[in-house]
């Protein structure tokens, strides 16, 4: 399994865009496994370990990533994308559970990663980001890197191979647009 991941990461950093799509479904079960492992050791409902799981997502990635020391940018990019999918998937599951009124039998597979209140926010950001990507892919990438990946302006610029100034400027408008979308009062599209 590690070998396959390594191969895909290498292919991806060699410029094979399709490799990332193959990579994510392979890594996802690994992430759930980690979450399960943490849950098994924790008391139920404790969400602190969520952060631990996320830390571990990064750390695992970092280990795979080390095979190309010289190119942190790709590593940061993949991390942010995986973080986004992991967090949002869990948030979605959380919401489904809430709608279904299933408050008792929470399977370990669906380890509580995201609190119910926050999960709605995360899903909304994710969806708005998809809408943004339809007409401004680059700004949606900036938000993905900064918000989901937690990267600094400089690191984001490194990933996108542009200047920090540009990132800062483009981040400003992206944030304003998303704020409009999510505050639910006014849509810029209206």
């Amino acid at each position: 399994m590690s070998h396959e991941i390594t191969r895909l990461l290498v292919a991806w950093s060699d410029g094979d865009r399709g490799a990332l799509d193959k990579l994510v479904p392979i890594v996802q079960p690994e992430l759930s496994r980690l979450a399960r492992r943490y849950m098994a050791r924790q008391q139920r409902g404790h969400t602190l370990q969520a952060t631990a799981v996320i830390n571990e997502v990064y750390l695992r990635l970092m280990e795979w990533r080390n095979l190309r020391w010289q190119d942190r940018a790709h590593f940061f990019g993949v991390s942010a994308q995986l973080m986004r999918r992991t967090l949002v998937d869990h948030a979605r599951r959380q919401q489904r559970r809430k709608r279904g009124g299933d408050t008792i039998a929470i399977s370990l597979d669906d380890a509580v990663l995201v609190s119910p209140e926050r999960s709605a926010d995360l899903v909304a950001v994710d969806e708005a980001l998809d809408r943004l990507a339809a007409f401004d892919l680059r700004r949606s990438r900036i938000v993905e890197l900064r918000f989901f990946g937690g990267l600094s302006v400089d690191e984001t610029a490194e990933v996108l191979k542009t200047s920090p100034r540009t990132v800062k400027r483009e981040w400003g408008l992206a944030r304003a647009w998303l704020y409009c979308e999510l505050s639910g009062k006014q849509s810029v599209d209206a």
Partner: protein
Amino acid sequence: MEAERWRQIERLYDAALKRPADEREAFLDNACGGDEALRRRIDILIAAQEKAGDFLESPAWAMVADAPAPDHPQFVVGRSIDRYQILSFLGSGGIGDVYLARDSRLERAVALKLLPARFTGDGDRVRHFEKEVRATSALNHPNIVAVYDTGETDAGRFIVMELVAGRTLREVVASGRPSLDSVAHIVRQVAEALTVAHSAGIVHRDVKPENIMVRDDGYVKVLDFGLARLLPSGVGELAGTGASHTNPGILLGTAHYMSPEQARGEAVTSATDVFSLGIVCYELATGEHPFKADSQIGVLHRILSHAPVPPGRLNPGVSSTLDALILDMLEKDPRLRPGAAEIKAVLAERPEQPVRVRSRSNARKVWQVTAAGLLAATLAGATVFGQTTIRWLMARVQSATANDFVCVGQNGPGTANPGPFDNVSVRAETTCLLRAGTRVQGSVTVEANGRLTLCVTSDCLFAPQTIPTEIRGSVSLGRGGEFLAIFASSPLATPFLVGGDIHASGARRFRIVGATVGGRVQITHANITGTGASPGPIGFNEIARSRIHGEVQLSDSIGTGPGDRIRIPGNVIEGDVHIAGNNVTLLQIGPNNSMKESLRCNGNLNIVPLGTNVVEGNKEGQCSDLP
């Protein structure tokens, strides 16, 4: 939205924001030229930009954890908890808030730390923690903050400690870089505390500037032994440090003093504290964090994968001894780090004494006690490949067919193809990369100024153990060549096996880490000058953590630039070792080599024996008094 429309909005939005607020109105009136819809959209976006505050400014994971409201100091000050009257709020520690309190029975001032309920919900963890607190206070050491009492009331679980009048090391650093003398003074005292704790089997787990108090008279006190145990196991092992409950997203931020093994969620040992202290020491000596990066992910990435820039390069006042000590504390492999007792001993020596003649007899006594365990661990790691491997190595199959691989481009084959190849050659001026699991039936030749990288630590660390990287023949390296083979020596790691010899004449750079070599290792006339100046993982030259069945010869190397370094730690060498005529800025032998035959050292400059080495045969020349 159409892309065209969006570009229009983008342009006017940026242009409007560049203007002072009172001119925007007029500018947009004019620029939109009566396009009401356009104008309205830009107005909405500008208003949003002003209202957005810190929207999306903290990372998504900060939204994830449910942070309970912090226990507000106001509610506690003035109350009594058990027999302690809370007088004032002193500050927030990693786990919980600290108050100045008065012990009404013993009539003395104490520090009381209130632990938030979220850290004390797990009975097992609390019991472990209390056991450790009792064990630590039983040590009764002047460099360890004494714990007087622990207990539980409706306000939560609490710890009562000795009140220390002074500043945390964080505050000391904030007011300017301390002199190197006081750095040694401070770090030595922390090492004193750790030595005592470690020999009692207690690991601090969270050594960082916030947990080190410096009293006004220069006395150092280490706080919060074992407190990190209260963190949920995932976080405790991963972040290894205090969680600020006001901002759960900051959990990652505390990763700054984390060791690589904590980062990987592996077992925490006393060597973990040494790594963290190494970071503290580096920061004190240079004013910079050894793994600094913009984001927390960046810091973790560096802790796991990057060798720090030698501290002596950032602060020329740092002696070569201190430089080597700090770098060894920051070894990625916990087994190669010095013990706290050795750190203490090295720092206790006066820096102006020449390194080679300093007396290490006192150090040795203490060090050998702790070293015995460490050495045993190192040897266990080195022999992990077992007898089958050794027999295989001795068999040495010769190649017959013609499936040779020739590396000619800038990037080698390795990205995808693991062979097996009959022979591999790296042509002059070429860089070649072979992945974990590559198999070569014959030999590997690196021509002049060629460079061969065989795997990198974590790549190999992660690949299944069943696929060794094998070179059945020999490796030879031409003038100016570079050979970087960095394998982890943990049982999880992929083995790296060389059946024949490793031979390099006039090499520019070599790193042979975690290898099992059936033949000899012979490195002569290497010219590594300037390699110490390159930051990152290839900053020095070494033969480390390897098991070598033949002789080892290291002779006539030159490397006189700052930071140029050859190190030979943690090897098991069956044959004779001969180190002669090397002139490098630092030539370090040890710690933890096990040499089955003789060790001869002649005519080397700047040779530093470090830690304990076991030599079963004769020791001759410069190394005759090697500890």
